[in-house]
């Protein structure tokens, strides 16, 4: 109550409110600038740069988005080969269960996976990860974004 007594006139209160709004806007602008300056992506990194078919590949995925990312249960990833453009492999097109989300990754968290490489053509490859944003485990998977791994060679 003492505070309000300092405003001798109503226009003083209005002035303070306007000042607070201006300050808030400045803070929001600064935060927004730095937020967007931060990396906005999903890091997908293979353990090694060189593999052979029919061996295991280790993969790390880190979510640097402000969003939760979720993975498909039918097609969590695809291999692509450079020939000379990136060409996706032809996959078995019959998933024997509904394409549900079976795992998600929270912002700033990482997960590690092992993949058994099938017989691939020799050459430069990468892994495409389709993700759904801000969904829950058990939801139907719907691709919102795709992220790519580093390039690696399959001998």
């Amino acid at each position, binding site marked *: 109550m003492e505070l309000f007594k300092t405003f001798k006139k109503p226009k003083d209160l209005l002035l303070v409110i306007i000042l607070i709004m201006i300050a808030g806007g400045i803070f929001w602008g600064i935060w927004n600038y730095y937020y967007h300056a931060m990396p906005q992506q999903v890091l997908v990194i293979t353990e090694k740069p060189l593999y052979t078919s029919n061996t295991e590949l280790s993969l790390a995925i880190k979510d640097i988005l402000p969003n939760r990312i979720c993975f498909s249960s039918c097609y969590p990833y695809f291999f692509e080969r450079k020939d000379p453009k990136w060409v996706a*492999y*032809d996959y*078995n097109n019959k998933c024997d269960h509904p394409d549900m989300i079976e795992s998600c990754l929270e912002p700033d968290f990482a997960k*590690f*996976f*092992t993949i058994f490489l099938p*017989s691939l*053509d020799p050459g430069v490859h990468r892994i495409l990860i389709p993700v759904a944003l801000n969904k829950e485990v058990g939801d139907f998977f719907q691709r919102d974004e795709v992220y790519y791994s580093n390039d690696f060679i399959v001998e």
Partner: protein
Amino acid sequence: MNIVKLINKKKTIVFLVLLFLSLGFFQFADTSDPLSFTITVSCSDPDGDLSTCEVTLPIDPTDTGPNDGICPESCASDSCSCSFTCAAPGDWSVCGKATDAEGLTDEDCSTETIGCVNHPPVAAFSCDPESCCYAYTDSSNPILTLINSSSDPDGEDDIAFSKWKGVRPSSNCPGLCDYTVQTSGLSSGNYEISLKVIDKSNASSVATGTIEIKQDIMADFLCSMDEEGPWEDCTGFKGIQKEYIYFKDISTVSEGAEYITSRIWELDGDAFSDENEATSSVKLLERSNIIKLTVKDDAGRTDSALSTLKARLPLPTWKEVAP
């Protein structure tokens, strides 16, 4: 009086002409070409005053008779020769003329039908092997060759061309040539083959015969992702890596055969089934896989079918592990 003596038909003809005043000899001697000849006239005079001895060819050399060469010829000796080649087969006359110092002459001519008469060739062919005058569709085993056994009374060299017809491709070749039957693209059945031989004088002869093209064994198979089918043509069919793909033999046996006696299934050169199974299966390990089926029937005919099968990648799976 003419005395004609055939020493060797086609080779040498000698005939004698006895003149009233002179004695002349006509001698025909061929050169390497059976239609090229040299005439030699021998003249004599009982008085011993022979002046010239001539040989003439009264028929127009550019017509049907002899031409070319140096005929006619006149010689101041008791012998005179000239050469000519026949422009075409036919009869022609040659004359010998003897003149003595007193200007008395005697001439004798002879019309001959030997030498420039062409004998047509005789076409004939046989199968090789003789007991096997057949071949199989789209097969080079056995190779059926038709042997050109044509002949020509004027000599084998007189045959200028041989023309084979009946199955494609037709074949024209110089001289005598055999013919290998190409069965590619032919359907089974009987085919009449004709051989025409043409000699250098354009006389010809035709021989015909029949060959049989039998339906050969044909290997083929279908593909499926399921043991029970549905079965599809393997062209363009895609399997899945590390999953079984199923095959069904739909081969047909050769003409005269009744059943398949052997089936060998191979994946990239390695047999995965050789127990005469009409259906078989294998896991595709590579992105591109070559499947081969070799079949043999009770007639001993064999055939193989190849199919290159692409394999899709299996469903992608991963396993989460601790960092």
